């Protein structure tokens, strides 16, 4: 399993290009304004939250404007970057020294290079579209201003995450997006399920965050620094063990944020949030932060083959996991969520492959951001027209009443399946190919996953748009959504169609990212034509089977006598059961003791959570008798001990 490392070491198979990022380069010219990227949405969030109800009328437009302003800034930066030579594309903007005590310095700095640039464009671009869409989607909601404040907060935090120059700053952004995600999932607070889902996301994400903080501490101990430059530039000086542990901890963090096995369960529940949130946070951007983290930390994983293998394994498992769950769900958003999990599994897999995969992980990430956001917004549009119905068994024949949604959604559907020349074809096939470069197992998993993807996406598409109308009584008149929602979807649909080709044309994305991530090619274990056509064949087979199976009547209530696998898949492959046993139970116990609902305590008795500190605390409390004289006695004992101790030290 040390293919990746040996590859780097010997530089075999010609084309290995190592990453060569000059982190010390001080930002100049247009890049000195990169802080504006974060400042705009941050200002929007703060203003909307603090200004209160006065801004209810026009607050959402401010949110949109701030997001667009950030996007415009990003575009300017992008062109400035294109205009500069490769060597100048990595820019660091030193903001201020956070702590400088003695030799230890933590600067607060932003770092913009091709990798962050890609993310910034994705976040602000897709983010702005979703902001616009949400103006229409949330039109009826009384708390729309607050919603936009949170959205802006999210964008700011996410930008901080990808623009960070050190793991510490990244961590702040990491926590920021977690907070925004929590706030947005439980946005419909009146729904108990939303509140529960928010809590679940919160708790599961804390597990991942522990990994992140341990990783940062390990870095501090190992390298004496937490900046990218200080850590990634010195990976060679650390032992493999240290690198492995740092890598595994980073992987744990990535699993939490990106809903990877075994921390995947929160993502399905997170669909309780408003649909624009699902599109932006839980499909296009935040959940991909884990992939960003792994790619950014590439050198660590290259120096720690075990950790890299772990990334591949996790990615492969999640890939199948998500796909299987996607096949069994009837809730349109949950199918999409399972699909998101699965697609991110692909990205993780690619990221774990090392330089042969980094570029494609990011490529797929961008393509996925476009087509998945497109489909989520489409699903939102359907819900908008169907009185918030999400059960696909109650859809059907919508292609006639929602023409715009149907066309755009179809573009996304074709893109995710990887039908040429749609976006997914370029990005996913590259990952499958890279997986075959690594070995048989990851390659086959990836290829089979593509078939299943085609199956469940076609199932979704068929059940929703074709066949007979199975609408329930209260939903007799589905209607198309307003323009303000359709236009963003249309733009995303256009991107779903074209982004793959645009980025793949002349290896644009490879050339663009290589200076940051490095790039290498290797022989695949299988002829790559076989891979390409085989995958395509599997995709088509999956799609056809699904179409044939679901084009006919679909019962409104899900059939009960189904295979064990279906049952398992309907229950999220027992992910919840697993999480409940491993994380939720201890988590609940922890929360309960945190919340102090221990009945004795609420009663005001003094026993407290006796089990908490082994009863130590409760026992120690007993010393605090409330008697002045006993306090005095303790003071006297203390004095005598002090005196005795000092004399003993002397002797």
């Amino acid at each position, binding site marked *: 399993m040390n293919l990746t490392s040996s590859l780097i070491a010997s530089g075999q198979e010609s084309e290995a290009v190592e990453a060569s990022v000059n982190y010390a380069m001080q930002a100049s010219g247009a890049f000195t304004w990169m802080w504006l990227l974060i400042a705009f949405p941050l200002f929007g969030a703060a203003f909307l939250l603090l200004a209160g109800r006065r801004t209810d009328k026009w607050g959402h437009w401010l949110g949109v404007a701030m997001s667009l302003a950030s996007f415009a800034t990003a575009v300017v930066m992008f062109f400035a970057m294109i205009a500069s030579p490769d060597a100048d594309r990595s820019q660091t903007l030193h903001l201020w020294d956070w702590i400088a005590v003695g030799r230890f310095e933590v600067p607060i700095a932003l770092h913009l290079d091709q990798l962050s640039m890609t993310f910034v464009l994705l976040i602000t671009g897709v983010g702005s579209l979703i902001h616009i869409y949400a103006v229409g989607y949330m039109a009826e909601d009384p708390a729309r201003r607050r919603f936009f404040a949170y959205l802006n907060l999210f964008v700011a935090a996410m930008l901080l995450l990808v623009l960070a120059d050190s793991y510490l700053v990244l961590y702040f952004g990491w926590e920021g997006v977690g907070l925004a995600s929590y706030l947005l999932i439980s946005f419909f607070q009146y729904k108990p399920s939303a509140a529960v889902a928010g809590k679940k996301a919160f708790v599961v994400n804390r597990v991942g965050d522990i990994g992140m903080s341990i990783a940062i501490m390990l870095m501090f101990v190992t390298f004496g620094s937490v900046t990218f430059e200080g850590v990634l530039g010195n990976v060679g000086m650390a032992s493999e063990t240290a690198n492995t542990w740092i890598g595994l901890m980073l992987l744990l963090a990535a699993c939490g944020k990106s809903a990877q096995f075994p921390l995947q369960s929160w993502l399905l529940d997170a669909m309780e949030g408003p649909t624009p949130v699902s599109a932006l946070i839980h499909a296009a951007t935040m959940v991909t932060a884990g992939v960003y983290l792994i790619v950014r930390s590439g050198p660590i994983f290259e120096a720690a083959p075990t950790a890299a293998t772990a990334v591949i394994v996790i990615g492969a498992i999640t890939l199948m996991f998500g796909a299987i769950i996607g096949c069994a769900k009837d809730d349109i958003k949950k199918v999409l969520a399972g699909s998101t999990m699965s697609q991110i599994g692909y990205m993780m897999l690619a990221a774990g492959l090392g330089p042969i995969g980094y570029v494609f992980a990011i490529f797929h990430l961008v393509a996925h951001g476009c087509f998945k956001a497109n489909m989520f917004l489409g699903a939102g549009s359907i819900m908008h027209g169907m009185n918030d119905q999400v059960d696909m068994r109650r859809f059907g024949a919508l292609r006639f009443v929602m023409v715009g949604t149907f066309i755009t959604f179809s573009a996304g559907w074709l893109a995710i399946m990887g039908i040429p020349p749609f976006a997914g074809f370029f990005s996913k096939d590259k990952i499958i190919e890279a997986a075959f470069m690594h070995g048989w197992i990851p390659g086959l998993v990836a290829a089979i996953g593509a078939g299943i993807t085609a199956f469940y996406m076609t199932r979704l598409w068929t059940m929703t748009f074709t066949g007979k109308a199975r609408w329930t009584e209260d939903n007799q008149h589905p209607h198309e959504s307003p323009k303000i929602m359709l236009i963003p979807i249309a733009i995303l649909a256009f991107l779903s169609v074209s982004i793959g080709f645009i980025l793949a044309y002349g290896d644009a994305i490879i050339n663009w990212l290589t200076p940051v991530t490095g790039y290498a090619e290797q022989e695949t274990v299988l002829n790559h034509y076989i891979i390409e056509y085989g995958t395509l064949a599997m995709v088509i087979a999956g799609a056809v089977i699904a179409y044939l199976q679901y084009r006919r009547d679909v019962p409104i209530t899900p059939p009960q006598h189904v295979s064990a696998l279906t049952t398992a898949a309907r229950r999220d492959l027992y992910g919840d059961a697993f999480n409940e046993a491993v994380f939720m139970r201890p988590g609940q116990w922890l929360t309960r003791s945190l919340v102090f609902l221990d009945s004795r305590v609420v009663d005001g008795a003094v026993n407290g959570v006796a089990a908490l500190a082994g009863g130590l605390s409760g026992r120690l*409390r*007993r010393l605090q*008798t*409330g*008697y*002045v*004289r006993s306090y*005095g006695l303790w003071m*006297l004992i203390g004095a005598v001990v002090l005196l005795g101790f000092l004399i003993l030290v002397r002797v």
Partner: protein
Amino acid sequence: MTPEYYIILSAILFTLGALGFLVRRNAIIVFMCVELMLNASNLAFVGFANQWGNLDGQTIAFYVMVVAAAEVVVGLAIILMIYRTRRSASVDEPNLLKF
């Protein structure tokens, strides 16, 4: 003349005061025990002043007396207040704040 005897006496007084603080229940007496400790310190100061042949110790004794007097005033006020409220000057009686 050695100050040792004075110091030993003052140590005894100080200890008596500290023990009195622990065993007496009347707040005033408890407080008087603290005063005894302060005066034990005074004795030590004066004794040492004699040993060193400078006046610092004696001056300090004056200041300590003044401070002690101020403390008495504050202490009496507080104890009296408690006494009026609870009809008792026992230091064990007001015992609502604990654990």
